[in-house]
């Protein structure tokens, strides 16, 4: 077990170094950060001097070695764009991304699993077909489009309400009521600062602001989970032990949820674990559309200004996240699947 863990950690370290190296080489192609830093009439000498001071003229391997050396001591330097410490910039924005990803994951599971179960239990029912079709939209529409449509429908449209719902001269729903439902088009709303963590969970405006971005972010995964659960349900329901349970005269509810769903969830849990990493890493588009102040948006802005210190730190963070998740999954498999252990014993014996 210890050997396994050490081997995995060693591999993880190599992955991290490789990611850092590749990103460093790529930074040579994002353009000249100096041009993003100085005013138009800064003299060529001053530009060159700044480039020299920042060590941008050094060869890639030297800069890389310096970066790794500093990163190991937890130093990521100052942002070229804002002159703020990179570590703090990322830590300040991380809660926003994590909260968004958490809510999106919850949405995915709480809506996706019931949808999957329903369409698995009644595959031919018309409503299952509706769910199937709707879920297709989740995969086929690009995230930014979904986001913009949401903003127009739930943020702009209610605010442009003039008469509300008027039928035969009677106002059934007035504009104040409609406005009450309007959601914010951008930002996190009001957040509460808990020292190292800022949260939007504790205020009404903060919770309201989470609705549209988390649905947008979770839509793709929702489809994935729903289809996975549906396929698994169909599979499991054909299994012999379900038939046997029916023969024993158990109630439908107990068969569907007690036996079938429970057995379906094993792959779902595995996939969900991996998807959480995806949600965090790929929140970039959703964050950009909703101006959500998370790490993804920070990364996009850093690309625009060739802010190399921030970009390197971000990419390392994401690499770390994926490495950590994969490591955890590997360890779980190791614990769950006895075949892995026997395989190892077999090689040792041979």
């Amino acid at each position: 077990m210890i050997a396994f863990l050490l081997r995995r950690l060693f591999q993880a370290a190599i992955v991290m170094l490789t990611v850092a190296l590749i990103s460093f080489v790529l930074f040579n192609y994002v353009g000249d950060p100096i041009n993003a830093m100085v005013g138009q009439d800064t003299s060529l000498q001053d530009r060159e001097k700044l480039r020299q001071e920042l060590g941008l003229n050094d060869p890639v391997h030297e800069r890389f070695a310096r970066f790794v050396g500093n990163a190991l001591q937890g130093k990521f330097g100052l942002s070229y764009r804002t002159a703020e410490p990179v570590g703090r910039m990322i830590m300040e924005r991380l809660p926003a991304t994590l909260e968004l990803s958490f809510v999106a994951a919850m949405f995915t599971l709480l809506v996706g699993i019931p949808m999957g179960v329903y369409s698995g239990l009644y595959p031919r029912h018309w409503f299952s077909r509706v769910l199937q079709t709707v879920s297709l939209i989740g995969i086929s529409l690009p995230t930014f489009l979904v986001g913009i449509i949401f903003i127009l429908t739930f943020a702009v449209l209610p605010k442009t309400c003039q008469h509300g719902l008027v039928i035969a001269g009677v106002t059934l729903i007035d504009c104040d009521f409609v406005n009450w439902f309007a959601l914010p088009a951008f930002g996190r709303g009001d957040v509460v600062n808990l020292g190292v963590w800022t949260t939007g969970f504790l205020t009404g405006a903060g919770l309201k602001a989470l609705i549209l971005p988390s649905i947008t972010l979770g839509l793709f995964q929702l489809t994935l989970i729903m289809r996975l659960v549906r396929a698994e349900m169909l599979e499991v329901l054909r299994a012999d032990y379900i038939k046997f349970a029916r023969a024993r005269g158990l109630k439908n509810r107990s068969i569907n949820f007690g036996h079938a769903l429970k057995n379906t969830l094993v792959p779902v849990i595995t996939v969900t674990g991996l998807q959480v990493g995806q949600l965090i890493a790929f929140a970039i588009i959703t964050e950009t559309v909703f101006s959500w102040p998370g790490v993804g948006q920070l990364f996009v802005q850093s690309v625009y200004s060739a802010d190399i210190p921030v970009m390197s730190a971000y990419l390392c963070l994401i690499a770390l996240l994926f490495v950590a998740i994969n490591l955890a999954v590997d360890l779980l498999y190791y614990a769950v699947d006895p075949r892995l252990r026997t395989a190892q014993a077999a090689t040792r014996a041979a």
Partner: protein
Amino acid sequence: MLFETRRLILAGGAAVALALAAPLGAAPAEAQGKVFRWANDGDVNSMDPYARNETFLLAFLQNIYEPLVRRDKKSQLEAGLAVKWGQTSPTTWFFDLRPGVKFHDGSAFTADDVVFSLNRAGGKGSNMTTYFSTVKAIRKVSDTRVEVDTNVPDPLLASKWAQILIMSKAWCEKNNAQAVGDLTKNEENFATRNAMGSGPFKLKSREPDVKTVLEPNKEWWDKPEHNLTEVVFSRIANAATRVAALRSGEIDMVYTVPPQDTDTLAKDPNTKVIQGPETRVVYLGFDHGRNELLYSNVKGKNPFKDKRVREAIYRSIDVEAIKRTVMRGQSYPVALMVAPVIGGYMKDLDKRPAMLKPEEAKKLLADAGYPGGFEVTLDCPTDRYVNDEKICQAVVGMLARIGVKINLRAQTRLKYFAQILLPKADTSFWMLGWSPAATFDVHDVFINLIQTPNTETKKGQFNPGSYSNPKFDELADKVQIETDVKKRNAMIAEATKIYVSDYAYIPLHQQAVIWAARKNVDLVQTSDNSFQLRWVKMK
């Protein structure tokens, strides 16, 4: 389960009906205090007024800090922290300071703060050092008077320093921010995130890239024209979201409006578009210097060295057509390298020569030795100026008619500038834009864009095509130190004629500054795209 489903569908139907019943119309203007919320595509990159020499940062920080001499609604100089200023000799400037001014922390503003700030702005780590190139010494004469010696006569010093905002010496020293933050060190400078000046607004809170909140300074020395109780600035990077937030009333003003949305916002009964010409002139430049043109099929010579070729190209580009089609009317064609609001603009000379017919242009090319035209590469940024790439595409089409085949190489600005600008100047034909916002004077354009490049004297540093005319250089040098306005203008006129008749550059247009706001907001737009909160009124 079925019953549940039906209820769900009913609810969904009701929601759709509701959405349809909500017509696009005027919402009653909400009177929620006088909190003014506005947004831009990028954040103010720092709270330090010398960290960046960029319009947006300097304009924003002018709400908190103030310059000695500030610009009024028409971009003319007026008294700021200095009540009187001028020259006691060609190389000495004086500034008489306003008495009784208090910083936000209640401390008094004195000559020490001015001397400290000017040294900080001209010192290490500052991005404002270009404004100090002529400065020899800065000294305090009394508590209310500061004098500055320059190496050479500098008639524009006061004008340049309208960009230099004054900080408190005591505050900087207390917080260990005597110099601008050093990027090579691993520690943050206090002034990067905090601000304390003497201006009309105080910094209340700041979350970088998210929200910056200002509140009015009740002790301000000037009479406020605004009626705001709080100002919230947010960054909304995505253009569509920014426009949506304005339409939904979540924000009151948008600083950068995407050109394609101006029509929608102008038609919306709740919003208005404020637009005017910007001081920046967008132009095309030729390689006058190399003996063989890069990225071209012409070998052994450079067609752009021949004035007839430059004329044929200049007079085949239809700026009015670009304005009509590409710019949707949002540009102001020019024939000079400076805009009308800039000092030294020569109205009489701002006339473009008539367009040539394709055969006339072809004849010019043939006379120059290129009867079949030639092929060359046009370099273009994709994200720097309004519709930059599309303008270049239009130019490609226009020049195809006279047999000049253009290969377009468009790239993102950070890569673009590194390639185009000196010392590399790896280009034959390119697009740039320039605004002499530093001095509001034509000499800024002369010395940077048109004079012969020279690394020693720092002249012609943004003249990658190495255009060089000794007569022009001589005049530009004289313009720099001439303090007699009449003589100076005569020289400017002569110099302007030289570069115009040489077809040194192809000025295209001033792009429009486009802002949008809710109908209940009154504000002042200046041609240097500087948005000042002190002129904002909300009904």
